């Protein structure tokens, strides 16, 4: 079974209470936004972190993607707020 590593940053990480986790790969056709909804359904910190998907951004294998992107064969998904560097 393929696996997908999920990484969390900034307040997403704080709400969930961990840097990341590894899950069974949800399949190439799964959209990031639908995976977020599944995680949100776990409740607790997940529900808090993912309450408003409009506040979230994502990267697949270290490249920014829209939330409507499909996971494809990516090995790493990162979920985080809009960036605030510089």
């Amino acid at each position, binding site marked *: 079974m393929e696996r997908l590593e999920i990484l969390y940053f900034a307040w997403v990480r704080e709400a969930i209470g961990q840097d990341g986790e590894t899950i069974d790969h949800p399949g190439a056709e799964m959209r990031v936004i639908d995976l977020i909804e599944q995680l949100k359904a776990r409740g607790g910190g997940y529900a808090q972190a993912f309450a408003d998907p409009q506040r979230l951004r994502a990267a697949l294998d*270290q490249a*920014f993607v829209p939330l409507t992107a499909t996971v494809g064969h990516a090995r790493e998904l990162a979920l985080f*707020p*809009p*960036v605030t*560097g*510089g």
Partner: protein
Amino acid sequence: MIDIAVGTEDFDAAMLLAELEGLGGGAVASFTGIVRGGDGLLSMRLDHYPAMTQARVHEIVEEANRRWPLLGVVVRHRVGELTPGSRIVFVGTASAHRAAALEACAFLIDWLKTSAPFWKKESFADGRQNWVEARAEDDAAKERWG
């Protein structure tokens, strides 16, 4: 010449400028970002996505290289705990003429603010802590470059 570093260490802007001045162009431009004090700010922590940051900054520099005839670009971006007055970021560009150096420098900082995986968290004297929200003005500043 492309010289990028992301890390906790401070940097010496004069040394970085000297590096750019030695490239034979007629123009060197730079921007240094400093942690702004006030409102009881004690410190600011910068988190990033280590596996992605260096590559993403490199892509942004490559984009600047496609748009302007640059002789060199230096980027330093600090992460970790920083106090007011500390340097956060440095962008330096060298080119034959000033327009390319100045424009590319502005482009680079606008893009670094809005499309590289860094996040800032502020801590205040009264105990408050908050993650800095992305600003619409920053997005607009990026958008003006098309």
